């Protein structure tokens, strides 16, 4: 492993890697996309990785990602069948993404909707039509989105046509296999939910790798008028995994979003979630649960853009921090002047299981309309002694009582997950983690 201590070297590394990557991409049919990769790379090289001096990265030290050279993933490993089964939830369609590449053989086909590899769907379209499906590159995007744009190979494409209500959830399993050198993966997904269509998408991000790896994922979602999306994400990366996820959702008139993001694993997790309300009367319900122990760091940055009147957004993000873990929640709400009658609520609650753990909370309300209701609140506390005694006085031992109360604390952040097997799976992981 080559270790570079200075920033120029690490940028140089990605530049060289891109040249190798480009030669592999020689046959890439659409030149325009290649041009976009180049532009993104140049923008990235110019900006460099974010620094702790950047307000958006103040509490998040990304050195584990920037102090070493990650190889760009160039092979697909294999995952034992029983491991896959273990991650699959019952009663859902399964899409499997291994090392950033959609596996056709392991994935279900789903009646009445388009689903599969982003790459193939793009290639199937007539020349350059993909440009209508992806937003043009925005050079002001985070450096991680730029890097993803330069290097992405594949990801999941879901297109739910207008008026289609998919009853059975779609579960996407993103799994990275064991790596011998530190490796980087750049999955990129695009989901489009048509007018009056409705779907439940469940993502699970995990790994069977014991080695160090870095996932830089980017997901773009579009909700048509009156569309409805139940979106649950579970991040359970390995102990030596670093994951930076950026997700942007654009919601059109009368659409509704229920989002639950649960982060349990990974040495470092950064989650940027942008919801842009691009039509009247949208509703967005966001819930988050982080559970970090040891020296884990989990950072949630949310941005809700209220661009139109009469929209409602709620955010409830909860964190459980044990050991020397660090948590960050930065909740930004931006209300444009024309977005009258906006109802935006934000709440952050943290349970500290250990005195050495620490939480940084920053609400950021930027309100430029006058007839709105915007609230925010944050609370950091420990388990309640009276509740603990109450449980023990009925025969529950202290450790179990603590577990019970911690799960109880977590439960509020899991509301909205309607597919019971997912909820059970999450509760089990939380319980197991508590018992460690």
């Amino acid at each position: 492993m080559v270790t570079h201590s200075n920033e120029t070297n690490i940028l140089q590394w990605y530049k060289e890697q891109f040249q190798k990557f480009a030669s592999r991409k020689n046959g890439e049919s659409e030149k325009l996309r290649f041009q976009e990769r180049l532009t993104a790379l140049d923008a990235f090289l110019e900006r460099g990785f974010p620094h702790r001096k950047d307000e958006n990265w103040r509490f998040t030290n990304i050195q584990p990602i920037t102090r070493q050279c990650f190889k760009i993933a160039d092979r697909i490993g294999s995952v034992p069948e029983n491991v896959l089964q273990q991650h699959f939830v019952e009663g859902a369609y399964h899409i499997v993404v291994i090392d950033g590449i959609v596996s056709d053989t392991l994935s279900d086909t789903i009646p009445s909707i388009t689903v599969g590899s982003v790459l193939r769907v793009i290639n199937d379209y007539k020349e350059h039509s993909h440009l209508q499906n992806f937003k043009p590159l925005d050079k002001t995007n985070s450096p991680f989105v730029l890097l993803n744009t330069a290097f992405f190979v594949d990801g999941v494409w879901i297109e739910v046509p207008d008026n289609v209500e998919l009853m059975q959830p779609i579960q996407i399993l993103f799994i990275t296999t064991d790596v011998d050198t530190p490796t980087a993966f750049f999955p990129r997904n695009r989901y489009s939910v048509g007018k009056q269509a409705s779907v439940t998408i469940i993502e699970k991000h995990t790994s069977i790798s014991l080695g160090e790896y870095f996932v830089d994922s980017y997901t773009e979602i579009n909700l048509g008028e009156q569309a409805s999306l139940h979106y649950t994400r579970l991040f359970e990366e390995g102990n030596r995994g670093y994951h930076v996820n950026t997700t942007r959702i654009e919601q059109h008139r009368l659409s509704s979003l229920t989002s639950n993001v649960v982060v349990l694993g990974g040495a470092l997790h950064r989650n940027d979630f942008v919801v842009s309300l691009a039509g009247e009367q949208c509703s967005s319900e966001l819930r988050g649960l982080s559970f970090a122990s040891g020296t884990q760091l989990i950072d949630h940055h949310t941005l809700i853009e209220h661009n139109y009147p009469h929209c409602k957004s709620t955010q409830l993000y909860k964190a459980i921090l044990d050991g020397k873990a660090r948590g960050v929640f930065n909740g930004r709400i931006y209300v444009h002047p024309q977005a009258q009658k906006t109802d935006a609520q934000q709440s952050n609650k943290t349970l500290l299981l250990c005195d050495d753990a620490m939480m940084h909370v920053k609400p950021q309300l930027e309100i430029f309309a006058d007839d709105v209701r915007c609230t925010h609140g944050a609370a950091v506390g420990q388990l309640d002694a009276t509740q603990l005694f109450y449980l023990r006085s009925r025969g529950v031992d202290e450790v179990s009582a603590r577990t019970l109360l911690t799960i109880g604390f977590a439960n509020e952040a899991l509301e909205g997950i309607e597919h019971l097997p997912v909820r059970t799976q999450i509760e089990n992981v939380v319980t197991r983690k508590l018992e460690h």
Partner: protein
Amino acid sequence: MNLLEIRNLHAEVEGTEILRGVNLTINVGEVHAIMGPNGSGKSTLAGVLTGRELYTITEGEILYKGKDLLAMTPEDRAREGLFLAFQYPVEVPGVTNAYFLKTALNAIRKYRGLEELDAMDFLKLVRSKLKLVDLDENFLNRAVNDGFSGGEKKRNEIFHMAVLEPTLAILDETDSGLDIDALRIVADGVNSLRKPENAMLVITHYQRLLNYIVPDIVHVLVDGKIVKSGSKELAIELEQRGYDWVRETTEV
């Protein structure tokens, strides 16, 4: 047989002495009532018996089934059959009544070497106990006491008691906050749980409850001491004459 024996118990909270030499013996099969003015130390006594960490014992001892009760953890006391129906039942958001109760019951059963109940058997058991206190089945899936009305919380405590079947149950003002019908229901429920091998300690302000749950002995606790004990008629007399009468007739 002697189930509980409290000898010269002194306890303090944050440096203030609350219990100042309590002596009390309860035999199996007996129902004892404790009455006393606000702040006299009734809930403190209940808290000390069940092992609440808030209190420091400065003197005295408590024998339960011949064992040193003060040396036991709260959970072991419960597993040995001690139960407290709280004056202020605690809300536990996010934890369902059923899940909590199943965990508690199975912990107790395990301690006693009994097989743990599975979901089906548990449900069968709790359904019958819910009827005892006239609680709807949906209370099973609601978070413990979360958003319950005052009376529902009290009934829920007795429901827990019915499921856990304690040897010594302490009811701390279970009657306060109950309407007339609910009082009757709860009292009937409690009475149906009376067994020759069990005992009860009923803390109350009102003689009315003692018409339903008839005590063998009534104690009056004033300023951290039991100043008078007598038959159930003592409760009637107290109601008529007030606590000043007790204070005057005894030296505290």
